[in-house]
């Protein structure tokens, strides 16, 4: 029963990650992505999925999809109907599930974040409907697979996960909100396990949208650079299996890390611009730390939202200073968007994966493309690969419409 819940549920349970799957411009799977984040590789390249010749910008962090889909419970006929977004989600979910060694055929809840679902397929539908209105072949399938609930349902079914599905679409905070809500459910006793994550694929509508807002960088995004000139779009997916510590220990599952805190709120300043002083970001970072029982000085690494736009990075830099106070100068900060672009609804989940890799590998992800840090940044911007002791990592995600979210991850030892 979804409501009311049992009065007997145990609260304040520790929530651990026992499986993580990821696909981005860095590659498919943990190894390629960990190496990409650790070394600060830049995956931006010319867009091949659609024509960008009439746009200001023509680069993005496209995923090089593997030639074959993973071997799952989903019939091959169903897999062939999936679009790019669905295939990426399938890869991420399959990796996470395989790593967790969860059993198939469980009614585990699923919480996923996305901003555009199968938008690229929607674009095909649109073109077909407007240019060939008398031809209907393929249109029902497009309309069906386009919907986020179909993609998430099929990806979950592919690994034998049959539980209730919740899809959050809070713009660029969607992935972080999905992980955060999943954490709340396990932490608060609403579920023992949750399959969660975020995904978004590159689409012409979204790319053109950011281009129309003059938000895209023609040269590649350089978050927190004094001369930053915009963001770069990326695509990908990340998925996680979250469960209680008791559950993981009882079955002897390897634990990758722990999620210890989460907070979210809305910045009502403007639909597309953050509050210049970063009020909402200060709120979510403070509240997330409180829920994790840590202070700013306990945070060893901040994976900033850091889009590379003048407004976002300026606001976030001020927010970090306000939140960290006198500890700001010792704060290690970077934005992995410098390497893989902005993954929109997948960003929060993929960046949580980057944090997980960092706390597990004890290294800091650098931004190798930054030239001259913005003087607003009173923190250490990680500019070259380096090892470091990391106990806690904090990940920020801010989105269109003011959706703000902060996650805190802890090393498992």
């Amino acid at each position, binding site marked *: 029963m979804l*409501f009311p*819940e049992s009065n007997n549920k145990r609260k304040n349970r520790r929530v651990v990650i026992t499986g993580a799957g990821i696909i981005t411009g860095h590659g498919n799977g943990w190894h390629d992505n960990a190496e990409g984040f650790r070394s600060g590789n830049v995956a931006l390249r010319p867009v091949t999925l659609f024509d960008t010749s*009439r746009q200001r910008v023509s680069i993005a962090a496209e995923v090089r999809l593997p030639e074959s889909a993973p071997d799952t419970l989903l019939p091959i006929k169903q897999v062939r109907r999936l679009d790019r977004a669905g295939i990426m989600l399938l890869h991420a979910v399959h990796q996470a599930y395989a790593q967790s060694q969860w059993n198939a055929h469980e009614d585990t809840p699923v919480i996923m974040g996305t901003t555009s679902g199968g938008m690229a397929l929607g674009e095909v539908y649109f073109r077909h409907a*407007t240019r060939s209105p008398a031809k209907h072949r393929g249109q029902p399938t497009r309309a069906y697979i386009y*919907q986020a*609930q179909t993609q998430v349902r099929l990806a979950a079914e592919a690994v034998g996960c049959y539980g209730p599905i919740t899809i*959050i679409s*809070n713009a660029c905070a969607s992935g972080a909100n999905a992980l955060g809500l999943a954490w709340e459910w396990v932490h608060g006793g609403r579920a023992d396990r949750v399959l969660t994550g975020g995904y978004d694929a590159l689409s012409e509508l979204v790319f053109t949208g950011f281009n129309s807002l003059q938000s895209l960088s023609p040269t590649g995004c350089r978050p927190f650079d004094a001369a930053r000139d915009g963001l770069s779009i990326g695509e990908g997916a990340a998925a996680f299996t979250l469960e209680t510590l008791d559950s993981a220990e009882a079955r002897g599952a390897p634990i990758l890390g722990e999620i210890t805190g989460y907070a979210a709120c809305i910045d*009502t300043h403007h639909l597309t611009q953050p509050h210049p002083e970063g009020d909402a970001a200060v709120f979510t970072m403070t509240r997330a730390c409180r829920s994790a029982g840590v202070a700013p000085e306990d945070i060893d690494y901040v994976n900033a939202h850091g889009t590379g736009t003048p407004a976002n990075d300026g606001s976030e830099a001020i927010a970090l200073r306000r939140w960290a106070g006198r500890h700001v100068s010792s704060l290690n900060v970077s934005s992995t968007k410098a390497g893989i672009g902005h993954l929109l609804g997948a960003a929060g989940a993929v960046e949580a994966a980057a944090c997980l890799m960092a706390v597990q590998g004890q290294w800091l992800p650098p931004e190798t493309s930054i030239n001259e840090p913005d003087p607003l940044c009173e923190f250490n911007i990680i500019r070259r690969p380096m090892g470091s002791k990391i106990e806690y990592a904090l990940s920020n995600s801010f989105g269109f419409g*003011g959706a703000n979210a902060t996650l805190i991850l802890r090393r498992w030892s």
Partner: protein
Amino acid sequence: MRKVYINGTGCVSPAGWGVDGLHNAVFNNSPAPVHELERPGWEEPLKMRAVPRLSPPPAFLRHPRLRRSSPLTHYAASAVFEALKVGGANPDLSVIPQNTGILVCLQSGCVHYSYRFFNEALDNPATASPLLFPETVYSAPASHLACILQRTEIVYTLVGDPATFLRALALGAGWIAEGRLDACLVVGAEELNWLLADALWHFDHHAVPSAGAGALFLSAFSECSDAIELALVTDAFTYNSRLNRHEAAVRMREALPPGSGNEVLCDGREGRTLKDKIENSVWSGWPGARFSPKATLGEGFMAAGAWLPVTACEALKDNRYTAANVSVVGNDQQAIGARFIRHAGAGEASSRAPAGDGAA
């Protein structure tokens, strides 16, 4: 755990801006008119039930945030203001608890702006309007509502099939029950254009799409002597290779109380034998009154998902009814049910809903 009450309902539908329109259409079996919807490239138009234009426009549209917002946002805002019992250009927000959550549920989202923007993008991406793009984002309506209401702590946009609205009710109610929120607004909304109607046509040539919104204002405290309580929301029975749509509906039905002669069922029937087969089968033998808003208001997607519980709450204002079951057998994701109970108090309940079967 605290109980959760419905402290207000709001609605926009092809029957008008307000719950009264829905009330008249559903309980008096007065279907909203069917209009033609031009489908470019076809000789034959599509059909739709349109939300009537309001003239003059509602005062809340003067809010700066709503200047370039979508019809969907207008519907959602109107339903929310009605549920909160506030209105005007400068609504009194003091009646809303500070820790009020906002959950907005959508299936198709802001299709008007998406259509216009992509049209421009295909024509010439270099000149596509930056004013249109932000409104294409699923979360734009929730952001506008949060801004207008100045409630910022828990604001989520949920996407899915129409049963998602009940999923959101459970989520908001759970937060209230455990004391995290004192109140929560749950809104389901949808707008319509020819492209969405075209998509529906590919699955069902005879369906009549529509648009609108429904909102429930959940609270830990009832303001009425006759309190309506959200008693339960069933599990979400997800469709998959092991559980087809019919089987999911059966399990949802089994998770709800069997009902009695003084109880109401609000379901998703459209008044068409083939389309209604599952719900007719699953709910055969229902002993009480039965209302089917989609039969008179059309296929409103997520808005229809919200109209069902709004109808249930309206029916419970009639003191002949003590409880209402809501049955949502979603298009392509899940079946979920809910149950509302009226707790009779000292006050006189209004008696507007007749007994009967509201399906055409």
